């Protein structure tokens, strides 16, 4: 890939900041971007890839900003998008929230970062942890004299600095599974999948060597552990952070690596084995034209009785011209959010096996409006701690460093809703 220039535009398409990396595309080309985008949108043919003359615009939108890369080459699209997303990620790590205002406020750092992220159109140092070592935000302090050269910039292991020191050596492991679900209006499950990630937070000195053991079925079969006692999980599409030695995983399913410092996502996996939807919703939405809408929603926790789903939020669509809401819930509270045209029913804690009910009543104006409305689905958000749908478990985490310190691994499991939608009729 190679980008000729990178622009950050505000929502009206006015460049906030830009960097011309290659100089082969006139910077004024960006003026064509917004009109083109509008035109495409009008035609209903909007795509994240636009072209004007010889120039290709690859763009993403983040909050109220457009990030646009221009290129003349027949570039690798996914790589350019990845780059833009990575840029957003790096900026967000610096300013917490990447938006028009934070760009304006921090334009010096943005320039500094753009300078380091890419040179001559090619991605360079993209790791925000490494960047943070030498692009700091202590703006008030004057960096005088010889600033320390970040060792990482010259390191063999590009993702970890040498000479890290922690008083206490610890690793935190988060096993997070999100459930994506799509249920048809007639109640049949169209799609159900689990996307799992294992995230690590590492506070370890030196250059430690880590080995993670999971109850991976393939591994169990390899080692002959696949007895009836050991529950194992078959992982699909396992993807690892760059630090994991893939050859070892391929050979004997060992996950061994030298971790980066701090937070990172070690691996992700997918399971497409059908599981019972964790929270099942039945809904009846009756619309009496010109008078009222009556909504009845039944939610059932279809997970183990010992588990509790927290922060359950069920958003039920209502017509945009509905008024005078009235609710009745067996548990939790319901709230009408007119700007999104939904009723949100929140249940703080929802134990497994329980069944709750909500009724809502809305008035409808006697004069019906012209345009037809879509049928948005019912969405559910929840979080079940100490529980994984797949049953994945961390069996061990071995930490070996040449200085021989004792390090402590900690584990936590969470299951949460991903794209969890139930269509309404």
């Amino acid at each position, binding site marked *: 890939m190679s980008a000729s220039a990178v622009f950050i535009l505000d929502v009206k398409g006015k460049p906030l900041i830009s960097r011309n990396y290659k*100089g*082969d595309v*006139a910077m004024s080309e960006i003026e064509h971007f917004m009109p083109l985008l509008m035109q495409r949108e009008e035609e*209903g043919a*909007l795509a*994240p*890839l636009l072209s004007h003359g*010889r120039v290709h615009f690859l763009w993403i939108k983040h909050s109220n900003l457009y990030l646009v890369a221009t290129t003349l080459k*027949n570039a690798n*699209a*996914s*790589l350019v998008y*990845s780059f833009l*997303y990575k840029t957003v990620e790096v900026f967000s*790590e610096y*300013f*917490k929230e990447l*938006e028009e*205002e*934070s760009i*304006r406020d*921090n334009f*010096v750092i943005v320039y500094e970062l753009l300078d380091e992220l890419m040179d*001559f159109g*090619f991605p*360079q140092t993209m790791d925000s942890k490494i960047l943070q070592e030498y692009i700091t935000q202590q*703006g*008030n302090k004057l960096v005088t*004299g*010889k*600033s320390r050269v970040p060792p990482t*910039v*010259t390191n063999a292991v590009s993702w970890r600095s040498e000479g890290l020191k922690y008083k206490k050596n*610890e690793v935190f492991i988060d096993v997070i599974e999100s459930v994506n679900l*799509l249920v048809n209006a007639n109640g049949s499950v*169209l799609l159900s999948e689990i996307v799992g990630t294992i995230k690590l937070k590492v506070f370890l000195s030196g250059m430690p060597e880590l080995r993670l053991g999971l109850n991976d079925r393939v591994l169990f079969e390899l080692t002959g552990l696949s007895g009836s006692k050991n529950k194992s999980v078959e992982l*699909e599409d396992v993807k690892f952070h*760059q630090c994991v030695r*893939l050859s070892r*995983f391929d050979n004997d399913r060992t996950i061994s690596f030298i971790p980066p410092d701090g937070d990172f996502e070690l691996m992700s996996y997918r399971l497409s084995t059908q599981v019972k939807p964790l929270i099942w919703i039945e809904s009846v939405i009756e619309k009496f034209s010109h008078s009222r809408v009556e909504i009845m929603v039944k939610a059932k926790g279809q997970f183990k*009785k*010992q588990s509790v789903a*927290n922060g359950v939020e069920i958003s039920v669509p209502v017509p945009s011209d509905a008024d005078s809401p009235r609710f009745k819930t067996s548990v939790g509270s319901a709230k009408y959010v007119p700007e999104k045209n939904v009723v949100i029913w929140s249940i703080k*804690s929802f134990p497994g096996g329980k069944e709750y009910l909500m009724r809502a009543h809305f008035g409808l104006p006697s004069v019906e409006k012209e*345009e037809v409305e*879509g*049928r*948005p689905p019912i969405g559910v*958000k929840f979080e079940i*701690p100490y529980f994984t749908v797949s049953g994945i478990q*961390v*069996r*061990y985490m*071995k930490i070996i460093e040449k200085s021989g310190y004792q*390090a402590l691994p900690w*584990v936590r499991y969470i299951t*949460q*809703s991903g*794209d969890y*939608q139930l269509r309404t009729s």
Partner: protein
Amino acid sequence: MGSGLRDRALWKVALGATGSRPGRGRSPCSGDRKKEAAALPGGPAGSANRANRPPERHSSPRAGAGAEAGHSKRALPGADRPKQRISDGRRAPGRGSCAAAPRGAAGEGAGRSASGRRSALGAPAGGGGGRGGAAGRRRPGGGGTSAGRGPGPIGAGRRAEALGRRPRPGGGRALGRRGWEWGGGPRGSRGRLGAERAGLRAPGGNRRSGFPRQGWEEPAGTAPGRETMPYLGSEDVVKELKKALCNPHVQADRLRYRNVIQRVIRHMTQGLDMSGVFMEMVKASATVDIVQKKLVYLYMCTYAPLKPDLALLAINTLCKDCSDPNPMVRGLALRSMCSLRMPGVQEYIQQPILNGLRDKASYVRRVAVLGCAKMHNLHGDSEVDGALVNELYSLLRDQDPIVVVNCLRSLEEILKQEGGVVINKPIAHHLLNRMPKLDQWGQAEVLNFLLRYQPRSEEELFDILNLLDSFLKSSSPGVVMGATKLFLILAKKFPHVQTDVLVQVKGPLLAACSSESRELCFAALCHVRQILHSLPGHFSSHYKKFFCSYSEPHYIKLQKVEVLCELVNDENVQQVLEELRGYCTDVSADFAQAAIFAIGGIARTYTDQCVQILTELLGLRQEHITTVVVQTFRDLVWLCPQCTEAVCQALPGCEENIQDSEGKQALIWLLGVHGERIPNAPYVLEDFVENVKSETFPAVKMELLTALLRLFLCRPAECQDMLGRLLHYCIEEEKDMAVRDRGLFYYRLLLAGIDEVKRILCSPKSDPSLGLLEDQAERPVNSWASDFNTLVPVYGKARWAAISKYQGAEHRGPELPNTASFASSGPLIPEEHKETVQEPDSGALMLVPNCQLTAEYFEKTWFSLKVAHQQVFPWKGAVHPDTLQMALQVVNIQTIAMSRAGAHPWKAYLSAQDDTGCLFLTELLLEPENSEMQISVKQNEPRTETLNGFISVLETVLGTIGDIKS
């Protein structure tokens, strides 16, 4: 451009706010931030938020052996309130707004650590000793509540109750079992440390989230002209900044000095011309402050092309910095120097680059390697420096992975004319071995370069493929696609390997298709479609992945529908059709129509089911649905004649719901061709004939003529009268030539006798073999492998062909119609050669039409540029501005301003832009007494070839006009 002033005013508002409230950067967004954090599907999802997440939420597996035991007996007491923990996690990101929050969270964490420790009780022995120690250590920092907590089970249990103020729905103990696993002793101390960490880090985060360089903002008193600055034109600002920069007091105070420089950059970012302070900025580059250096160098890189003579002065400083002891400074200086983009800089940068290539810091080497490519680009077409190329080739063995990849990139650029960097066996193998050390960008890049390598033997080929196998499962979609392409190309003689690879990447591709990033998802879907062309059944078992979600953007939904249409098979056709039928009534008409067309596509294989669905859709009596259904029917009866009967039965009544041209044409065609089976066909056509006067689309009239004549052949009695009326109208009253000609043609044809009409008009009514409407021929993988993972599948082949045609020699309208695809179904030029094709021949000048410059912009640019060319042109008499303007317009030169005819002296300002974006600004000055026209041309990018081209165009025009005159 015209809105420049308004935009500036907008800036001012924003800036004003910045100035008046220093803390603003933080306050307004904090609320949002909190909301945002709460909206996250789970606290941990936002990685940025996690930095300060209270760590007490973890339990500890003991390292090494025994862990499993601990794990299998998870019956640990010590429940905690999960809800509360999670909410802590969520609160953490909002911390930026209130410094107290993290401390609160930490306190809570510390308190909770006690309950955490309860879990330790259940843990097998190992942890005990450590725990004791840890508890001891924890006390001092742990906060009052947690101090003095005994490790005994009973005490802890009680405390658990004491702590559990909130009702626990599942019962404390039951929950606890699933609580902390392997809760080793150190939990307590962990809590303390967590508290410490949260406490320590929070302020850091705070500082960051807010307005980090607040200190740099001008303190109110020191910026006299500040309020009036951004919108009172740049001159005042430049003057004021210049004064500030020269002020020895400012220079003495580093912080103030940097503030002023920062303001210069801020204005530059806003698009104000700041080149006026170039000298002062050059002086400011001599500083020990690296941030100031960066800013000044950034400034120089931006304005050096405008002030090449002054920029040369800066070279000294840059050269000096290139030998600074700090590698960051060396790298920065070298990078900036190479980015100056002005003529004459080459001779100065050569030595620093060579030094940089041998620098001991890899940071500098990275910069230097790319510097070589930049230097080469500056030279333009100069010949390649062999020594440098050799040096770069040897640097492929560098320690640093980025240096290696940069070498490849740089060589590619330098050797562009010769076909790019050469990948021979040693290099290829070296790169293959380095692959795991590279980051995803590097990996993708190397995979792309490896495409060029031809393995000598089959054995070597398969060795390479084995080495690369793991990259098919990379977590980066770019790498996955890159690896796939490499596999497909390398194994082009082994179709089974290709198929195997496509099976392997199925998972990663599917994952990318449900990626959180819409754009990546879109790109992946486009590639899935590409694969489906060759392997139609490839994704059939995963058809549910391509069901659309309500909130997805349009372009993804459309792609998914296309994919669904292509992966139907006997097993899933029912479900797919049911899903597609749901989309047909979507609110978005475009999407609904796409879904109907998709059903039409499936109907070619599963005719009956689809025709039934389509017929049901007609019952909805929605205009946008009916028209598309009828169009689908038209194509369908042509390809699948067996459904004619069903279609004919469905048609009556449709005419009431069709308003657009396409739909009418389709309906009329159907009525004409299959009219004998539709009882009321003549009456429907009669309605059209009645209203033909108000019909706006000529195409509909044409279709009507043909259809009616055809129908006349099989149902003469009902049609004769209206055919006469229609012909009369078309011949006598119609204004559209084509329609009239068609009418006359049919009239004469009828005169020739009915047999003749039949012979000419009655063709076969269907022809399934005609592949024109169908594009389902399986394409071999090799036909698209070279396009895989480029922009081609993302644009779609048809559009790409249109675009690349546009990018070729001649300029046409921006969007060629999609029909262009028929002409260009062959494989496109392989990627390697495409670059050279796209590059315009040096010297060939292409002026872009419709380059509309505003007068203000012209003026600004005019004053910022140097005269690139000046000459006089003999001229006699006065000028006729209109004639001249017209003539200039013909060659795409725009007139910005022109004196009236006979003015004295006569002046004109012209502008033009070529296809590379290079602007030519021209002044014509005619002083009649000298009887010559003085031409001054300015160019925003110094390129002599195009300049000469432009001048010759201008001379031709003036010469022609002059000739007419004399």
